[in-house]
């Protein structure tokens, strides 16, 4: 199906707004990178060649230390393994009869940032925040480590991934419910509209934060982390879809009263066809412009909840949790709050630029459907 030329023109206009377009490209690139994040930021190597065998541990099973000749049964410390292979190569080169290209038969490739967000690296035997590598900290930690010795870059990277996926899922669900309910209210109107509106008013006055606090204090400890994240997402959606219905309800009322809807009725179209084929395509373009702002508010909301300790369950990496640590150790480890703050601000600026550009491109004052 060909895109409507009006839509094409809006998209072209969006592309012509450089700040928004580049923000969109950067953010989309970051999301794509973060989806394959295990290949970039991980303590497992991309590939291992050991005694003539190949290993690809990134997405595979846990390889115990015994696989590589260690005497421990827990997961291999790959950075130590890398150091060992390095030493083997160095030793091979020191042999008198070694050709200049001599190296160990064993080798591995570590990801760009060889740390796992949940891995506590203890330096000098204690868990304490280490400054960034460029400020005299241990090598490899570009942004230093947090209060329990976890790499801040890895935590920010995975925190970004969880947050943005959470925000996208949140936006998709709130739009789905809000559009469905708002559209039904606008389409059927009358008593149905009146009752649902009152119900929404009551519902939206329930204090969200208390519900979250109460809910997570009664959730049994057996719930896994993905289950807890899903639960938090559902609770947030449950208390946020209502604002979408207001726009959708009025937009549907407006479109329903227009003659093309009447024409469809006269032709014999049923409610399903009228809603999905006629009304929705005409109302959704305005809703698209809200979307980046919904995403931005979802990111802020989940960060705030994390900051308060009611958000993503520990040890999930998150920006809010880093901010919380950082403010608590502001004097001893200012780099924690610094990088978390910078990351949050950058994400929000990117999203807001996209939103501004979308709003500008979809501005009906410039591009009306009436020529």
């Amino acid at each position, binding site marked *: 199906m*060909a895109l*409507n*030329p*009006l839509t094409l023109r809006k998209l072209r206009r969006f592309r012509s707004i450089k700040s928004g377009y580049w923000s969109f490209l950067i953010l989309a690139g970051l999301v794509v990178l973060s989806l394959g994040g295990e290949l970039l930021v991980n303590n497992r190597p991309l590939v291992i060649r050991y005694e003539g065998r190949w290993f690809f541990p990134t997405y595979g099973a846990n390889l115990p230390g015994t696989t590589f000749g260690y005497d421990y049964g827990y997961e291999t410390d790959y950075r130590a393994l890398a150091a060992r292979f390095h030493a083997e190569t160095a030793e091979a080169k020191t042999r008198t009869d070694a050709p200049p290209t001599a190296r160990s038969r064993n080798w591995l490739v570590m990801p760009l940032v060889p740390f796992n967000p949940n891995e506590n690296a203890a330096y000098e035997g204690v868990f304490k925040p280490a400054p960034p590598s460029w400020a005299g900290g241990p090598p490899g930690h570009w942004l230093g480590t947090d209060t329990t010795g976890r790499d801040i870059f890895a935590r920010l990277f995975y925190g970004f991934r969880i947050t943005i996926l959470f925000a996208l899922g949140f936006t998709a669900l709130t739009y789905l419910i809000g559009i469905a309910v708002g559209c039904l209210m606008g389409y059927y109107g009358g008593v149905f509209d009146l009752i649902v509106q009152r119900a929404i008013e009551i519902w939206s006055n329930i204090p969200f934060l208390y519900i979250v606090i109460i809910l997570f204090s009664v959730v049994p400890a057996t719930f896994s982390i993905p289950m807890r994240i899903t639960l938090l997402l559902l609770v947030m959606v449950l208390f946020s879809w209502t604002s979408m219905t207001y726009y959708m309800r009025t937009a549907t009322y407006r479109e329903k009263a*227009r*003659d*093309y809807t*009447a*024409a*469809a*009725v*006269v*032709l*014999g*179209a049923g409610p399903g*066809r009228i809603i999905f084929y*006629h009304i929705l*395509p*005409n109302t959704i373009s305005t809703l698209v412009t809200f979307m980046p702002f919904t995403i931005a508010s979802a990111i802020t909301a989940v960060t705030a909840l994390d900051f308060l300790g009611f958000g993503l369950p520990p040890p999930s990496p998150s920006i809010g949790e880093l901010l919380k640590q950082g403010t608590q150790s502001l004097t001893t480890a200012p780099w924690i709050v610094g990088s978390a703050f910078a990351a949050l601000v950058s994400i929000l600026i990117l999203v807001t630029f996209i939103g501004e550009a979308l709003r500008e491109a979809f501005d009906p004052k410039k591009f009306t*459907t*009436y*020529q």
Partner: protein
Amino acid sequence: MTPDANQNPPAQPLLEVKGLKMHFPVREGLFLRAKRSNRAVDGLDLSLATGETLGLVGESGCGKSTLGKCIVRLYRPSAGQILFQGRDLAHAKGAALKAQRRHLQMIFQDPVESLNARHTVADIVAEPLVIHGIGDAHSRQRKVRELLDRVGLPANAAERFPFEFSGGQRQRIGIARAIALGPRLIVCDEPVSALDVSIQSQVLNLLLELQHDLGLSYLFIAHNLAVVKHVSDRVAIMYLGKIVELADAEEIYRNPRHPYTRALISAIPEPDPLRSAHKQRIVLSGDVPSPINPPSGCAFHPRCPHATDRCKHEAPALRALASTEAAPGAATTASPHHLSCHYDL
């Protein structure tokens, strides 16, 4: 209610409206209870024969569009019957109503509003075929091309969008959509009043041509008497939800009987300055009363120059005038002249 508004041919009319009422509740007060209602159409009878064009004229707010929308069942009438091909549409629903919709279409006033801007012309014209499950994608495409050609649009219009066309062309798209299902009756709700004068006649001629070729009947709603005269076989004059006069087009222009009709006809601009000098203009005083609170008796009495006490208390019925009363020289095939007035003025 008049016993019968039928005329030639004596066979069953295509459309017969009996005692139709459309009252919209006026919700007010704290609990939005409907205490009063807007009587947009208030007990109206008319009939329409196959192949006939009935012009429906009235001021804005007289309920003529509401009547049209009731007939195509955009509204569910409060009371009365709409007999279309012998079936009552007023209370039809579901599949029975959908089946009748194939034969009953509408052309809208505003061709910008009545075409969905998100769909191509091909989508718009093919939609009735899709809804009624006629043909496959290929045969529909062929049919769309036929229809576009029929209404005088180029074949390459199919892939374009409504906003790429002028007002008259858009109205042609609306007409192509309306005739796609091969209807028998089309309600034309002021189909040319949104168009340029230069385009109006082209679209009117297209409508007349289609009527001739396809045997269509039109209920032609308008406020422009000159346009109505051009297209209509018979003309009905509506005032506050009721028909006050109904006669052959020629007859009603030559021999208007109702004071309201006379006022309307005297308001038609006369292009000939010699004749316009002699023309007597009847100017009505006051505004159209609110259909929420219509006057007692004859609804026209507050503005009628001939009103008597009887008019204030007693509502006149629409009655057929004896043919002798009709003006001499009226067409021989003339249908009875109907009038809703106590007096023969």
